[in-house]
């Protein structure tokens, strides 16, 4: 019997699992694949929290301001490299443009645009889908007073790839930067840049090396990094194309925090249905067992509480049949809020289908939209599965997932 069974290994699921395990609960996290964190940029967006908290039925209305701050502090607690400022923070996208973010690793946060300085974009030879000319142009446009230049580098560990004319993904690069050999090569290259730009360093004192990948040793998922190269110039990380190194290593990092706290991960198993405890008509049902498909047979997982973090349309938690004849939640078959209009013709406009999801009471327990009654007493819905929010136009994906995951873990 588990204290909590978390279904889904995305951001909300991991946060819920880690917090519950930290509170001494016996937690099992069931996931089919590696989860959507592999597409995560490394930056958490919270959106305009004050404004969204007054949006009718938005998930933020379920939480008080304190709960939202608590979630942010939790992220900082598990990864101290995340910094939270009163003023907005900015980072480079993979195209060299600037985007705002609410919670980002120290090494992604850009310096003040108003100041003067120099960026040196350090590009490993053969990096896939990365176009330094475009990136440099965009960087110069975003930072008008700054000098921007490119330096290319050969990576010894990738010599065989270069010889074959094969591209290297940013995940592969991050893998090398995180090895002792890679850190040394990078330190050497940066020292070289410092020498080359000694004049600029002397005059302005602000030269940043910009790298299109994850470089620093935070998210140390192997928990083995006994070395740390000191770079002679400050290094800025850009976000990357997917699968992203920040996302990959963050996911691995969360997994290790979770298992070190005693949590168990069951990967490769798909949750398909549940068994309930018989209750009287008027009461909310109590879920007893989650049934998952393992290889060759079904497993029954008994739990006191269940946290549903299977994602929305993109994550696979909500399935839409041909011509939208069926729209359903795949594990509990929960009633869904489905907007009357499916889409708006304007591509970048808020799309109604983004609001699809499960409506809940203030404890994140699923409601029947028709009757307004709680359907399951011991099931908590978190993350993208919640109804009435739009991560794309409201830019609050990280915020809703972290806040709801954390809050659900406090309830189990």
């Amino acid at each position, binding site marked *: 019997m588990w204290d909590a069974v978390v279904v889904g290994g995305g951001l909300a699921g991991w946060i819920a699992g880690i917090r519950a395990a930290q509170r001494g609960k016996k937690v099992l996290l069931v996931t089919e694949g590696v989860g959507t964190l*592999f597409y995560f940029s490394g930056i958490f967006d919270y959106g305009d929290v004050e404004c969204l908290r007054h949006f009718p039925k938005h998930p933020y209305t379920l939480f008080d301001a304190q709960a939202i701050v608590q979630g942010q502090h939790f992220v900082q607690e598990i990864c101290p490299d995340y910094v939270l400022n009163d003023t907005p923070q900015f980072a480079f996208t993979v195209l060299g443009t600037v985007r705002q973010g609410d919670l980002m690793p120290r090494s992604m946060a850009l310096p003040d645009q108003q100041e003067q300085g120099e960026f040196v974009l350090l590009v490993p030879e053969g990096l896939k889908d990365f176009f330094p000319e475009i990136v440099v142009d965009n960087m110069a446009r975003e930072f008008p007073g700054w000098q921007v230049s490119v330096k290319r580098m050969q990576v010894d560990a990738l010599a065989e790839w270069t010889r074959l004319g094969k591209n290297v993904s940013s995940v592969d690069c991050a893998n090398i930067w995180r090895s002792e050999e890679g850190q040394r090569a990078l330190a050497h290259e940066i020292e070289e840049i410092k020498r080359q730009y000694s004049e600029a360093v002397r005059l302005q004192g602000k030269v940043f090396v910009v790298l299109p990948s994850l470089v620093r040793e935070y998210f140390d998922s192997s928990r*083995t990094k006994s070395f740390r190269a000191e770079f002679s110039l400050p290094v800025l990380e850009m976000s990357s194309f997917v699968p992203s190194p920040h996302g990959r290593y963050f996911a691995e990092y969360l997994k290790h925090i979770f298992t070190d706290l005693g949590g168990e991960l069951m990967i*490769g198993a798909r949750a398909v249905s549940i068994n309930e405890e018989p209750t009287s008509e008027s009461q909310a049902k109590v879920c007893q067992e989650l049934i998952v498909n393992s290889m060759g047979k079904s497993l029954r997982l008994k739990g006191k509480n269940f946290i549903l973090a299977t994602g929305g349309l993109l994550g696979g938690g909500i399935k839409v049949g041909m011509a939208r004849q069926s729209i359903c939640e*795949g594990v509990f078959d929960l009633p869904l809020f489905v907007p009357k209009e499916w889409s708006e013709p304007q591509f970048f406009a808020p799309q109604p289908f983004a609001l699809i999801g499960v409506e809940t009471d203030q404890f994140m327990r699923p409601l029947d939209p028709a009757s307004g009654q709680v359907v399951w007493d011991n099931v908590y819905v978190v993350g993208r599965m919640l109804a009435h929010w739009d991560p794309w136009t409201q830019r609050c994906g990280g915020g809703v997932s972290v806040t709801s995951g954390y809050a659900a873990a406090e309830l189990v």
Partner: protein
Amino acid sequence: MDSRGELAARLDACQKCNVCTAQCPVAKVNPNFMGPKGLGPDMERFRRGQIILGETTLDDCSNCKTCELTCPSGVKITEMILEARRAVSKAPHKNTLGLKLRLRGYVLGRAEYLGKLGVIWPTMTNQVLKIKLVRLALDKALAISKSGPLPAYRKPLEVRVDKGGKIRASVSQQVVYFPGCYTRYNEADTGRIMIKVLEHVGFKTIVPDFHCCGLPLEANGQFEKAEKNGLYNLELMRPYLEAGIPIITSCTSCGLTLKEDYPKLPTTSAQHVGAQTYDLFEFLWQLYEKGELPLDFQEVKTSYGYHPPCHLKAQGIGIPALRILGLIPGVKIRNLDAGCCGLSGSYGFKAEKYDKAMKIGSTLFEAINVGAGRGDFQAMTTECGVCKVQIQHGTGLPTEHPVLILAKAYRLY
């Protein structure tokens, strides 16, 4: 009906997100390998157009199944690659391996015959395999790496069946144990302890004279022989399966084969084998949940690092061994989960793959060395025999099957 499952069976479920390639242990170290997405779903379109690639390209896949576990859309990537290898091996124009590599596939695929040969006179076999010149000859003649950690042979595990193969009336208190070649020929002592544990928890244990499960054959391109073995084993299991007796595995790769491949074989007993096969600890956990597992543990004051084998993950049952060991007072376990060990059955024994296999395992070795160096643990534990061999080869740390820890707690060892 499950629409996702149908989709997954189809090629179009692949969204080209590349997460599988980002996670593939082989693609990380081998630039010539196009990765699971390329070799699986991408090339599949060409294969549908009857363009058949050479087997050497396909052969770079180590069959660890990490890509299948990783895929957010449930695409059966390894299965696609294996199917393609099967097709190549049947292709009329022999666009396949040279004689040497085919011969090697024949030898490495036959872990069972090697075992049977090896255990005739284990000490001699082991001594011979230690001779550098012999390993050099194997390297030259069969491209079996001279540095690979070939496991030693010991007195084999005994077959245990009732005379006449009769099933006793109290069928619920019997299990069939599928030891697998590694336990049977290389580490029979562990197999014997496994049986002691099963008997201690109240189950009479039957060990029929099984053949190799077939996985090494499949991984070495011997598909027909693999299927033959499967059918033979299913025939031996038939009376037990029909009587509802569970089949217990202690090797995670045998377990996966019984659960994943056997149900597809063309025989009636194939219907039951998936649902009735249990990893040892999966079985013990079920007993524990029913309140039937004896909890007469003595304290075992040791710390272990744990390595989850790829083929345990692929079973989708979590890590029941850690749940059971967590019940024993004194035992401390750190789950390293630092990726594939690299050996992947017989992959790392191959001359051209040895270095790659060691590189794949380097992340795990690093995690073990640092953890042991810090004093977090003194030994390693993992269910898979070849992972164990590779871990000992890569780190020098003693490694044992988790059942030995349980046996210590039960005072059986």
